[in-house]
């Protein structure tokens, strides 16, 4: 049997006494949308930060296509084909949308600083080529109206899309989306769902997503993993995980409280 596309094996991270992530293992197949759910503080973002090498795991390892990710420095991750967005948007605020997307294409630069200082014809050609690729993303995500706007002046919804676009400009194999729909209105969430479907179906990108909106989760996910207090509670089909007693309990409290709530709802 060949190694899975992506695999996390027993990853753990501790902040002081707090085990933010505690022995989490999962794998993701190529082309899948794999969603991590769980209440706030469950350790979902921390899992992303371990994958993107912002945190060093105290135990465990991450493998992408049989290569160990956990040995590389953070800036090598994008080149490997892993891109991400951030829960609290981390854009380059005082650059234009276009510049943000071009920075997304940084791993594909072909010129060196010396040639750039003189802006040799090769640099100009490379810049035009980079631009053409970035424009594809601008078209895909309908970002043309904002192309030359400063990110700092954009509405929240647009910034989320720019962040998605920036991640796509790295041409990833694996895309990590941290709460892509949080803060978006119904219409924007709908767009986001379409884009996630497009990204997986048309661009063939594998997605790991952290998300709270269960409608979106059920719609786009192939498999779901539920976490609480740094541990995995359940894993499987979206509907099955949502009904799992441990998951219900984590979200609502005790099973009794859950039953109470269900009674009230019916």
């Amino acid at each position, binding site marked *: 049997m060949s190694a899975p596309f992506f695999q996390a094996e027993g990853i753990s991270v501790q902040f002081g006494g707090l085990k933010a992530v505690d022995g989490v293992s999962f794998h993701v197949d190529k082309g899948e949308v794999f969603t991590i759910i769980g209440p706030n503080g469950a350790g979902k973002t921390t899992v992303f930060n371990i994958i993107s090498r912002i945190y060093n795991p105290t135990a465990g390892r991450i493998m992408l296509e049989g290569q160990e990710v956990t040995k590389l420095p953070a800036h090598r991750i994008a080149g490997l084909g892993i891109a991400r967005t951030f829960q609290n948007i981390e854009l380059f*605020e*005082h650059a234009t949308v276009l510049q943000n997307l071009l920075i997304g294409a940084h791993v594909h630069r072909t010129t060196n600083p010396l040639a750039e200082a003189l802006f040799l014809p090769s640099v*100009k050609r490379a810049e035009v080529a980079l631009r053409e690729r970035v424009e594809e993303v601008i078209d895909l995500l309908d970002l043309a109206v904002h192309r030359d706007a400063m990110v700092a002046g954009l509405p929240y919804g647009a910034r989320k899309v720019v962040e998605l676009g920036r991640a796509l400009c790295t041409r990833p194999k694996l895309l990590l989306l941290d709460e892509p729909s949080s803060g978006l209105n119904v219409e924007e969430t709908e767009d986001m769902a379409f884009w996630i479907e497009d990204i997986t179906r048309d661009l063939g990108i594998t997605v790991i997503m952290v998300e709270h909106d269960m409608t979106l989760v059920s719609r786009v996910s192939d498999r779901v993993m539920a976490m609480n207090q740094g541990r995995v509670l359940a894993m499987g089909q979206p509907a099955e995980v949502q009904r799992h007693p441990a998951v219900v309990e984590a979200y609502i409290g005790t099973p009794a409280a859950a039953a109470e709530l269900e009674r009230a709802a019916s």
Partner: protein
Amino acid sequence: MRFIFKTRYEQDIELFQHGGKVFWYGLLMAVLLVAPVFVSPYVLTQLSQVCIYAIVAVGLMLLAGFTGQLSLGHAAFMAVGAYTQGVLVTAGVPFFVGIVAAALFAAAVGVIVGLPALRVKGLYLGIATLAFGTIIEEIIARAEHVTGGNAGLMVPPVNLFGWRFADGPSFYYLCLAFAVAATLIVINILRSPTGRAFVAIRDSEISAQSMGVNLAFYKTLSFAISAAFAGVAGGLYAHNIRFLSPDQFTVVQSIELVMMVVIGGLGSVHGAIYGAAFLIALPQMINAVKPFLPLFLSEATGLQPTVFGAVLILVVLFEPLGIYGAWLKTRTYFDLFPFYRQGMFRRQKAFQKSDRLK
């Protein structure tokens, strides 16, 4: 009002995005080229100084304004360049070889001074670079057999292919050529992947990293380029002043250089040049108004630093984008007249107060 319709990607990449810019920069260039005909030799020396400081300013802007790294060691980089040039030229080395050596040596020192940037940010980085700067100043004062120590070092005039660029117009043109070249290099870097990596580091280190930007490499590169520029400027400065001593390159000078880019307007190449002009013009303006001041003021020591500090405070409080920001607003006001509205630039202001140089 002007709308620029873009039809090709090259348009964003080109140096001048519309004919108007070609015209205005052309005019500026023409004025600078004929200046020696109209101004006194003294003013010409000052213009040379503006060119020299413009080189430092665009380099420091790249580091502080575009990479977000504070350096309080730039006077030391200038010193490294000035002394390298002074010592080499005295030993008979040709001018251009000296300048290249000054740039490379200053860049090497810049890499070392920039090392703390890999660990600390903002004010802590400022303090670390300040400490390095002080050490370099001290080394220069102690290495008497090479630098002449506190007694100083005489520097001969520029000699290019047997031609003396001693003073007046020829030296001014030399400085102008270097300043234009330095500005073009910075603009070129800024419209390339390297410049965008710098901006990425300035705005968010965490996502810069996740986009594949090697923080250590680009921070070090920014320090090296910035220091090399200061080194070249130092080399020219040595020829302009003709006498070097360590007290020309103290922490106070470093702070003045940072003030220069802040007052000019952080995050803009124009601002760097305005800042350089301001830095050189301020003492002249103060001297010009001195006769009209009451005696206790005109005789007071430290008048210049006080005025400088006051301007800095006013800029930080009221116009965080500096002279360039003020100019932008004026221009926008006329462009949009009568539709200009109050608070149009407010968002930028709020940011400048909190974020930059974080």
